[in-house]
């Protein structure tokens, strides 16, 4: 057990190191120069630009050779310093990310968990009712193939613009400031419904299809046949099938929870929802290396964290893994 976990931790640390290195490298391979970008936004005059450029270049450490920049990045990271944003200068990346993070998490975690629970339930239900299966399966296929972007726009158009039921932009009304009052929470929830629904429904189809297929496979497995041969009622056969079918689904959940912080990137863009996804989209367009790094760092942490959690959880929920990994 100890050996297994320490081996896992080592592998995850190694993966983390490789991931943050790629994080650093990828933005710098984009064409263009972020400082020039910034200057063109700051001033429309052509004067003194060379001096301003040199100053800013030095300020962001981009005058150094590439490898020194990398070492500096690693050094700063160990001190928790993610640098300063270029496009939102002089805000720090840490401040930007930590302000956006709660919006993303409160949007995507409920959407993913609820769609997981409801989808699995509906999938299991469909697997045993032929009629239901035939009618809802095509619907699920459409849902899972739907781009978040398209469903978001559809919901915004129908429930937002046409029926005027929900606001279509932001996480709260423009006239408000975030506070811990009931009226703010209600306003926040009102804004939350449409982005939540667009993620929830797209994910729902995938979970339901997955569960349905898994259950049908398990119901046809030898152990299910044997139970029926021994006269066990369908209830027990189904219970056993569900028990085994949910295991691969849990792996899928880990993957989904991993990308939770940027999972809703297009949804956040459509609804102007101030989460990590929106920040990331803006940072990429503005070539803001440091914000891109910060946002991706969150992704890396979430993916690795969720997978590590599931790796450990599997020891407890699947005896086959326990047996083959640890041998006790």
């Amino acid at each position, binding site marked *: 057990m100890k050996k297994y976990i320490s081996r896992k931790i080592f592998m995850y640390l190694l993966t983390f190191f490789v991931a943050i290195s790629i994080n650093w490298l990828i933005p710098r391979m984009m064409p263009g120069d972020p400082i020039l970008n910034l200057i063109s936004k700051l001033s429309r005059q052509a004067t003194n630009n060379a001096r301003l450029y040199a100053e800013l270049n030095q300020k962001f450490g981009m005058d150094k050779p590439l490898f020194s920049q990398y070492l500096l990045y690693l050094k700063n990271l160990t001190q928790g310093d993610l640098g300063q944003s270029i496009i939102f200068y002089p805000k720090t990346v840490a401040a930007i990310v930590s302000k956006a993070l709660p919006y993303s998490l409160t949007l995507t975690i409920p959407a993913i968990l609820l769609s997981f629970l409801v989808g699995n339930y509906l999938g299991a239900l469909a697997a045993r009712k032929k009629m239901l299966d035939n009618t809802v399966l095509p619907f699920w296929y459409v849902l899972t193939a739907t781009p978040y972007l398209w469903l978001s726009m559809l919901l915004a158009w129908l429930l937002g613009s046409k029926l005027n039921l929900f606001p279509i932009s932001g996480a709260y009304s423009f006239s408000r400031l975030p506070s811990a009052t009931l009226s703010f929470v209600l306003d926040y929830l009102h804004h939350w419904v449409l982005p939540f629904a667009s993620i929830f429904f797209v994910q729902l189809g995938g979970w339901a299809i997955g569960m349905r297929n898994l259950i049908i496979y398990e119901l046809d497995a030898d152990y299910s046949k*044997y139970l029926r041969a021994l*006269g066990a009622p369908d*209830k*027990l056969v189904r219970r*056993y099938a569900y*028990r085994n079918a949910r*295991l691969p689904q849990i792996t899928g959940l880990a993957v989904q929870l991993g990308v939770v912080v940027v999972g809703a990137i297009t949804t956040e863009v459509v609804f102007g929802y101030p989460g990590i996804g929106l920040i990331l989209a803006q940072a990429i367009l503005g070539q803001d290396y440091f914000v891109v790094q910060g946002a991706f760092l969150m992704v890396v942490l979430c993916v690795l964290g969720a997978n590590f959690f599931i790796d450990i959880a599997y020891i407890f929920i699947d005896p*086959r893994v326990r047996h083959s990994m640890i041998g006790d």
Partner: protein
Amino acid sequence: MSVEVENLKFYYRTRKGSVKALDDVSFSIADGEILGIAGESGCGKSTLSNGLIHVCPPMELAGGSVRLDGKNLPLDKPDEMNTYRFRNLSIIPQYALNAMNPTVKIGRYVQDLMQSRGIDYSAIEKLFADRLRFVRLPEGIQKRYPIELSGGMKQRVVMVISTLLNPSLLLCDEITSALDVSTQKVVSALVAAFRDEKIVKSVSFVTHDVPVLYQIADRILIMYAGQVAEAGPTEEIIHAAKHPYTQALVAAMPEMASTYRQKKHASIPGKPPALLDPPEGCRFKERCPYRMPCCDERPQKRLVGNGHEVYCWKEDL
């Protein structure tokens, strides 16, 4: 007679029509008897075991009846059959090595199974432990997962579970085919021991492995293309077979101490008929060296000895 099968027909419904996998088969098994059922792949022997325990689509009951301890089994009513399954007739399936749920401990499995059948587990817990000991499984196996056991152990666990309620009829479906020779011997000896200890009354032992039958069967039934070819006491079937197919089958058995080069195994020319649309009359006629015009009619049962029946037109059997 504890088991009487009369004119039993199990067909598989397909788009092209009914595949007559088991077509008008009659036999009986006496109390305390092990009936070996042998034949080549596709002769209907597994269909017989599966159909007796659970008729489910695409398989359907096309006729006939089965009496177990004097009671007609409601084969066409799967829900009513549930009361008989496990309690009165039980099966050791072909897939015994995968028959247990991999994520449920063996003790828990039996507990769930008993509860679902409305049987008090605490009343059967001690019997279960005794039976596990009877098949020489180590103590504490109830607390282990199936994946932690070897193939032979899994097989024995399934044998114990299947026979836990002392069924009258135990169906063994190719239970030795996935095992190595030494485990085969243990398993077939256990089936005989279950019978000797009166844990089960009668056994139907389906296999394609005739030498295994020779060791444990009291009587042997030879099937061909969904019908009975011959049935009789083991010694007579092995050493004095009457039906041309049985003779060919016995002659085709590999011998010890003879290599393929020294002596080519006898084989039967041709192949079994398609059961979607089987030929009229004797189903072996196309491959039979003794074919006569009357073979186009279905041969009737002929008694050629004590309990020895042959379905063949040949005069000098």
